[in-house]
């Protein structure tokens, strides 16, 4: 099985599972897809994957979540793991918030809900290609 993974974080399990199916469909052969329903769980998964020596390449996170907000999570993640690419997936089309995130961190991409599969997968693929380089 692949030694690298893509992590999806969203409080909506429906979303998570759809995402996982799409990612599995496109990149399942080479990358493991993990899901977490909260930021807290995301950190757990990150720890677990590190223990299993599985490298996380991309994290796709929702914007609005209970507890810690998506952007805060991504900013913190960016500080701890600057190599992990981050994709913000949100149903809230707040351009100012996106702008703020862009200014504060190295955001790989912002994808708005409802997302287009091709667009999202393209974005992921582009990110994965960065690692291949």
């Amino acid at each position: 099985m692949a030694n690298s993974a893509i992590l999806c974080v969203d409080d909506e399990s429906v979303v998570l599972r759809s995402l996982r199916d799409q990612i599995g469909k496109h990149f399942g052969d080479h990358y493991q897809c993990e899901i977490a329903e909260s930021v807290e769980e995301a950190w757990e998964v990150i720890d677990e994957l590190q223990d299993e020596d599985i490298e996380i390449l991309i994290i796709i996170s929702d914007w609005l979540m209970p507890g810690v907000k998506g952007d805060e999570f991504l900013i913190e993640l960016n500080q701890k793991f600057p190599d992990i690419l981050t994709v913000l997936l949100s149903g809230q089309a707040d351009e100012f918030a996106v702008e703020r995130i862009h200014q504060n961190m190295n955001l790989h991409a912002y994808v708005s809900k409802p997302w287009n599969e091709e667009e999202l997968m393209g974005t992921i693929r582009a990110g994965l290609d960065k690692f291949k380089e």
Partner: protein
Amino acid sequence: MFIQSLRSYPGKFARRQKLKTILIVPFVLQVCGAVGLVGYLSFRNGQQSIETLARQITVEVEDRIAERTKTYLSTPYTVNQLNQQALELGQLQVNDLKSMERHFWRQIQIFDRVSYIQFGSPQNEFVGLAANDDGTFTYQVTELTGDLQTYSILNQGQRGKLLKTSPNFMPQKRPWYLVPEKVNKPAWTDIYAWVNPPTLAITLGQPYYDQAGTFRGILATDLTIAQFSEFLKTLKIGKSGKSFILERSGLMVATSTSEQPFTQSNQGPQRLSALNSKDVITQATTQFLLKRFGSLQEIPERQQLDIEIAGRNYFLQVSPLQDQHGLDWLSVVVVPEADFMEQIYANTRSTLGLSIAALLVAILMGIATARWIIGPILKINQAATAISAGDLDRNVTLNRSDELGELARSFNHMVNDLRISLEEQKIMVDAVTESERQLAEYNRSLEQQVQQRTQELIQSEKMVALGQLTAGVAHEINTPLGAIQAAGENIASSLAKSMQRLPLLLQQLQPEQAQAFFRLLNAAQQHQELLTSREERQLKRDLKKMLIEEEIASASGLATTLSKMGIAPNITPYLPILVLPNNSDILDIAYDLTVVHNNTQNIRLAVGRAAKIVFALKSYARQDSSQKKVRTSIPDTVETVLTLYHNQLKQGIELSKKFDEVPEILCYPEELAQVWTNLLHNAMQAMEYKGQIDIAIKQVQQHIAVSFTDSGCGIPKEQQVKIFDPFFTTKPAGEGSGLGLDIVRKIVNKHEGKVECHSQSGHTRFDVWLPIEV
């Protein structure tokens, strides 16, 4: 108090009176006082000087009476003395009485006041000359006959014819003989009545001793007392003063009154007691003297007295009249005070008249002065009264240059100013009235506007809340939409993939393996509940462990797939296919088939969520235009709001709901939704979107009680009373309209319910009671 009231009395009096009275009365009082005092003093002085004068006059009169009396009384003594000297010189002889006739006749020529000159001897011899009432003289001699013979007298004093003979004449028995003989010196007889002419007379007798010292007889001279009265009558004492002479016994001697000092009877004249006098003054005076001194004997010297007779005052003076021959009378002078006071009274009357005249003049002058002073004041007063009654066109015309003229001018000036200022005031009042009217109109329209605006604000408040929700709602809707989209694509690709591979797989599988395959598919499709990612990971770990225990290759991948399918951690039923070398492919196909099912379920869930949100939004945002109550479940209205806020709530708020079964009630559901929205929104803001919110719905008697409890900072005590006021807000300007709780209360009131707040830090509860039967 009393003194004070006394002291203030004149002030009070003055304050009560009209100005005219005040101006006149003191004037008149002064004049009265001055005139009265002067009049009284002059009257007193006059009275005193008159009294003095009267006393002097009476004294003078008295002196004259005394002098005249003395003169009268001295005549008989002189005659007697002359006759005694003539006897001593031998010009007359006691033995030749006839010689005495011519002597007496000559004497009576000189001493016309005496009425009788006589000599009586102890030998009963008598010779006398009488001055008769008719002016003739007669000789009366005894000539040793013992009878008294009366002869007329010729021109040269010779005896004429015998006129009358009175028998048995005894001179020694007569008082004029007996009294001096007895005292052996000259002495007066008592007064005796003379028959013809009727009068009173008195005689002074004197004993005659010859050179040998032998008593030879009595020389005597008569004096008629009528002449005393004549004299008294000639005295003018005041106007109507009276004088009379009394003996100490009280018998009258002489009087200036018209009355005779004696009475007439059949026996001839009788002595008259002053007490019996017909003259009132004489009688009253005597009575007074008797009363005053007890007896007339007791009056030792001149007395000046005042006496009142018949209501009139009299000056009374009484003095003893005495001589050396034993005469002891009293002379009395009585003068009516009025005689002297007449002038004084006249003066007093004229003084009084003048006083009254002065008084009248004073009053007239006072009235004139008062009129002169008050007139203008009255004019001004009338004008002032008219002005106070509203007649401002009044002016006071006063052609004077004094203070009052000045006053009138000032008054006119003032009135003018007043008129101007009143006009200004009227203009201002009109302006104010107009302004007030406008203001009232503004107020009315403002009220309308406020009402309208409030309605708008309520709606806009709703829209603000909705606006705040929009982001979350967009997310809430986009999330299921995203899921649906993804699921659709997943289904499509999975179906395509599995359809491609399934027939081949089914051909390859042994019946036992096929059964296990379908068993796996069934298990996956029967698995309804979505596992959480954490549960799924655990499941994956469990499955992986089992697969490793069964020594199945690629355990990790298989476990992942199985866990995604939600297969329970019992792999035994599926071992026939798990042990196959192409187990991964078989499971992928199974998974793809499961994906269709799962994603279909996902779509259903997502659609349900989206529909719920849309419904909630629709019920929330709708403006209730029907204004009709609808039978509604209160928990549903709360749920609607919670749905809309789901996204915000889930980010840090622990929500606990405790909804009891409650009956549906007639209400305005949209408005109640706004109540819950406002309460929930406030709760979340109060705890800055982190903490605990408890919502409870229960039935309390005939009410449904909905309570929102938050763990926020609480509301300070002093603000708790104000939170329901409109526009009360603790939020920065622009963030809150301050209408939230006002709207809550309005809506609750509209439902005839009530809302209460209990707050302390960390525990704030809003209770809403809605009546069940309305």
